[in-house]
């Protein structure tokens, strides 16, 4: 073991900060130093400042910051996004509900959330629409002129790109069903009709 008295205060404080998994207050840091060597508070503050400056000067990927509960070392802000690669999380598979919502928007655009609910027979969660918006697969393209003026959603060029399609026409045809796309219109129109019935005299 190195004789602690040979270790510069700066190195000592760095080691304590590196080794703890939570911020340390000035008092806690002082408490870790051998009694016969505890420096003045001003010396402590100067040394902490020296550490901070040192990392900055060296363009180190870590920085010393002071947060509510004390001092801590953290990944420097300028490195954050690069290091984020380490923390990439693969989300779970998409739900059936999401795929159906996407399909309805793709085949029946533009549609409102009400339309989607009417077709799926289940209330459409705002989360699904938000996920699809976040993914840039759908976009708001306007409002339906019914009471409440619900947002109309349609797919985006990114959606086509993702599936390597040049246009919506290239979506696979819905063959093998007695039910034509017309039926979808039927359902949504019904919805629409009730919507409009209140405006019609």
């Amino acid at each position: 073991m190195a004789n602690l008295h040979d270790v510069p205060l700066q190195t000592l404080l760095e080691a304590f900060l590196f080794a703890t998994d939570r911020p340390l207050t000035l008092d806690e840091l002082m408490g870790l130093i051998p009694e016969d060597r505890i420096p003045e508070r001003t010396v402590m503050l100067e040394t902490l400042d020296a550490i901070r400056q040192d990392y900055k000067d060296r363009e180190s990927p870590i920085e010393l910051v002071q947060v509510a509960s004390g001092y801590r070392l953290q990944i420097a802000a300028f490195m954050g996004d690069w290091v984020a690669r380490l923390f990439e999380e693969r989300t779970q598979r998409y739900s059936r509900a999401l795929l159906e919502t996407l399909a309805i928007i793709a085949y029946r655009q533009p549609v409102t959330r009400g339309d989607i609910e009417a077709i799926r027979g289940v209330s459409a969660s705002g989360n699904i629409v938000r996920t699809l918006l976040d993914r840039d697969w759908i976009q708001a393209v306007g409002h339906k002129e019914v009471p409440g003026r619900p947002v109309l959603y349609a797919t985006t060029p990114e959606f086509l790109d993702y599936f390597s399609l040049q246009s919506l026409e290239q979506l696979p045809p819905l063959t093998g069903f007695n039910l034509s796309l017309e039926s979808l219109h039927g359902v949504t129109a019904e919805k629409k009709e009730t919507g409009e019935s209140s405006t019609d005299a």
Partner: protein
Amino acid sequence: MTENPTAGSSIKVNGASFEQMPPDLYIPPDALEVFLDRFEGPLDLLLYLIRRENIDILDIPVAEITRQYMSYIDMMQTMSLELAAEYLLMAAILAEIKSRMLLPRVVKPGEANEEDPRAELVRRLQEYEQFRQAAHAIELLPRMDREHHLLHIDTSSIPSRKIPPEIALDAVLDAMKGVMQRLERLKHHRIFQEPLSVRERMVEILQKLGAGRSLNYRTLFSAGEGRRGAVVALLAILELCRDAMINIDIDEAEGQILVSPRRQTE
């Protein structure tokens, strides 16, 4: 060498209940219990005895070791320590070796020497001793949180990026088919099956033709409504025609299809 194996402790036993205790073991009862409890098993105990007596493992005086071993077993039983079955099994093995050692060894000419009755036990003791030492060596290796310490750098400020799942176009199609199948089942329970959008469009077309005009069928479609809108418009026109509410005329000279309201008088 008269050094006490428990050197460092100057405590004497003052009870008479430990007469059977080996003379060199002077430990008070509770400490003795701890001591006996530390043996990892019969091999460990035997190695302790061999070591204490400074015995050559290749030439174990079985009778003496068995006597000592049994006195420890008795002690453990007296102190009602939970005695693992292995200890008693070893006692039996020792007794067997002891009795075989007493028999004269008959080596018939031409035959290999009969194996020393102690050989298997010695092999086991040696093997165990190897791993006992290895365990000790591992214990001495530098290890985490004793000699080595990880760094803890705060990463809470790092944005966590989520990689969204991939999907195949087929999955979208499947989802759509599922929706349509559900709708179809639903439809069978409906009283009217008329697609309402067509009905609606029929009304719209009739309104456009209300003035008694003839219109190019193209004007009944709007460019912005897309394929599905066009299909609805077409279905509406055909439906109106079938219901005899409109006429469809082909103007060959102009190369256009004209749609006009059917007059009641006709």
